[in-house]
């Protein structure tokens, strides 16, 4: 019997594992390996060059720029979208009027392809013609501005788009968590004469902690993973002011065809994600309790 379970277990697993290894573990391993090799050129095969790619990396100004961008992008997107998501969920879960319509409005951007979202917003941002400039000149009589063409404003403009796209998605997780909280707690708090604010701060927020953490981790991963809108809206410009790490990897690999260096950049990405995973592991273990 036990012997048969062995065989069946492996038999059932094999198809999934083959693809998993072929397209996740093998390429991840190869990326690390490839970061120590030069890019093959024509008849010249890849050579082992030790840490040279990493030396280039440290000296590469664009890399640092992109990493800084990604940092600001994450910092600009995550707290606001998570806070908005919580607010949305609290509202939609309450006994207000018009919650169904509001929920649709909040969640709809999540269903759209990021490419489509970028197209819609690009139209908003078009200098002189887009809605933002129409409002500026129509109401305030201000001159046209090019938010996406200015290195100082472009990242902010992109952050707004990411928040719009993501907040509704995170709202769902809060909504699920809120619905699993027994109503007895609220009643007890009311009987004890606790204010809504007190209830929110002392009962709801601690209970929502696991969700907040889960959502935040997802938000961080998304801030590295989602770059589609950059292609449509800015192409990383002006002067790399809106380029993010994954977008830069794409450029290095598929525009300049420096696959060795692209592998090195991917290693940075893997390291960042691993740090995140380790952090998540410890945070989840210590700070947070499951129901």
């Amino acid at each position, binding site marked *: 019997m036990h012997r048969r379970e062995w065989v069946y277990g492996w038999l059932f697993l094999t198809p999934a594992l083959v693809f998993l290894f072929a397209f996740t573990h093998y390429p991840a391993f190869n990326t690390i390996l490839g970061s120590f090799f030069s890019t093959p050129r024509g008849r010249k095969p890849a050579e082992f060059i030790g840490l040279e790619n990493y030396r280039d990396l440290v000296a590469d100004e664009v890399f640092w720029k992109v990493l800084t961008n990604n940092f600001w992008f994450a910092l600009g997107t995550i707290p606001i979208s998570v806070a908005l998501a919580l607010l949305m969920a609290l509202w939609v879960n309450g006994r207000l*009027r*018009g919650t169904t319509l509001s929920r649709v409005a909040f969640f709809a951007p999540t269903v759209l392809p990021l490419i*489509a979202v970028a197209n819609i917003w690009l*139209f908003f941002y078009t200098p002189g013609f887009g809605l933002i400039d129409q409002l500026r000149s129509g109401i305030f009589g201000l001159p046209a501005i090019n938010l996406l063409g200015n290195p100082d404003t472009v990242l902010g403009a992109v952050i707004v788009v990411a928040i719009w796209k993501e907040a509704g998605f995170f709202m769902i*997780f809060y909504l699920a968590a809120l619905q699993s909280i027994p109503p007895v707690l609220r009643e007890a708090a009311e009987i004890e004469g606790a204010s809504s604010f007190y209830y929110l701060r002392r009962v709801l927020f601690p209970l929502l902690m696991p969700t907040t953490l889960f959502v935040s981790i997802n938000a961080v991963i998304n801030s590295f*993973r989602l770059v589609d809108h950059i292609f449509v809206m800015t192409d990383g410009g002006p002067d790399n002011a809106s380029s993010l790490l994954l977008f830069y990897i794409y450029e290095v690999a598929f525009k300049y065809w420096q696959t060795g260096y692209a592998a090195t950049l991917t290693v940075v990405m893997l390291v960042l994600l691993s740090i995140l*995973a380790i952090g998540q592991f410890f945070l989840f273990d210590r700070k947070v309790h499951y129901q």
Partner: protein
Amino acid sequence: MNLTRRRVPEFGVMLNSVAMWTLATLWALPLLYAIWTAFHPAAYETRFVITAPLTLDNFVKAWNAAPFARYFLNTFMLVTMILASQFILCTLAAFAFARFRFPGRSILFSLVLLQLLVMPDILIVENYKTIRALGLVDTIVAIGLPYIASGFGIFLLRQTFMSIPRELDDAARIEGCSFIGLLWRVYIPLARPTYLAYGLVSVSHHWNNFLWPLIITNSVETRPVTVGLSVFSAVDAGIEWSVINAATLMTSGPLLLGFLLFQRQFVQSFMRAGIR
């Protein structure tokens, strides 16, 4: 009657309602605006007159300007292929993890979970090499291959399978059911809500995916709608915004429509798939 219920709404409730409506309006605005421009002639792109004539011209123009029919077909084939393969592979793997004891089980399971972090999305360089070595560049199969063994799907289904009581197994075994029969008659039917949830998440994810399809495809015959849309709107030939917006809505239309019709299921599915 019902005196306690029919209180005058409190000030706080009013305030919250107004704030919620404001945010909801703000959130809906970009989409509503895109819909406005897509259904009106170009002259009304920034003029909001209630009497503005409605038109489908923009959609007709967009449809004729690029092979969207083909793009839709490609996306449809892609999404179907991925979903079918994911269901098969993930079901088998999840069942093995949930019900069989075999050496290496926990190590293999953590390797599966690793994919939640190291997604194929970021391994574009190496996966491109693999696909090229397989001679599959510029095929629809190539777009799907990296995603069909989904760590997330395996995890989700395993959780569901583990919550199914063992007694059902034993009963089915006594009746002479094989493992496949057990899976087919007991486990899959009981996990139907999870399949629905995972299916919706997977379809919308792969319908919307862009970067990998952009890299691996380079012809009309293989491009999904997202890449098609970006190619269409990137042309600097001065295509009118209303036409681009029409194309944008068109590509997201099926998902958006599905979402509006099955709003509740959608939200519940995303919730179910999100709870871990």
